[in-house]
């Protein structure tokens, strides 16, 4: 199953500079495992040590934020397009409080 994945600048060190790579999997978590097998280390930038989606990235399936599709359990189909974007966030607030506010 071929799924197109659009990779942001900050993660292209894992993909040999490629902006778009292919992956496979019937769920987001299976796709990320497949990506990690092809591009070693990328999983650690997407998933926390606790096993959840990292707060620093947004992942979209076609035009939907995966957080509204079941996050790592989001179902994927052949021909889906995945976009990864680094979250744009910040502010004067302390980091721990910001992370808690985001709840992810």
């Amino acid at each position, binding site marked *: 199953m071929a799924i197109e994945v659009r990779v*942001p*600048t*900050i993660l292209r060190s894992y993909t040999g500079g490629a902006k778009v790579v292919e992956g496979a999997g019937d769920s987001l978590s299976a796709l990320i495992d497949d990506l990690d097998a092809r591009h070693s280390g990328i999983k650690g930038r997407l998933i926390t040590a606790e096993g959840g989606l990292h707060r*620093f*990235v*947004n992942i*979209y399936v076609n*035009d939907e*934020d995966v*957080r509204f599709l079941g996050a790592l359990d989001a179902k994927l189909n052949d021909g889906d397009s995945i*976009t990864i*974007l*680094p*979250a*744009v*966030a*910040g*502010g*004067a*607030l*302390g*980091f721990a*409080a*910001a992370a808690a*506010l*985001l709840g992810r």
Partner: protein
Amino acid sequence: MCLATRRVANWFGNVNAVLTIDSSIVRAIVAHARRDHPDEACGVVAGPIGSDVPTRHIPMDNAARSMTFYEFDSMEHLRVWREMDDNDEEPVVIYHSHTATEAYPSRTDVSFAGEPGAHYLLVSTREPDSEEIRSFRIVDGVVTEEEVNIVDATVKS
């Protein structure tokens, strides 16, 4: 303190340690920051890929609507990034305001900074009648201040 920071920037040897930006865009960013004060305001200035010239100001919603935190709305973020892709543009400047503190990246700003190619512009609106405007590169957690060169020529308004 400003001078000391600039010296650090030179020490790191950033060859392009300057943000050149049109005065009309700076005025629009400041107006956005004032409008949303005391909440933090945020947005992007897009420019042609590889040009390092910010030409198209895109004010973004602060989905957090907070005085101490900003976050792009995830759907608006996707839409604007796709639009830039279609136009062969990239985010040359990512800006936000601090409304009660100085225009210097907080630890939170540094942790989240995910666009190594962008100039991170900060505007402080803590003084009611003047703004502090400063620009930084944030790469792998390292903050490098750069000069802001405000010009009148890059954009037709």
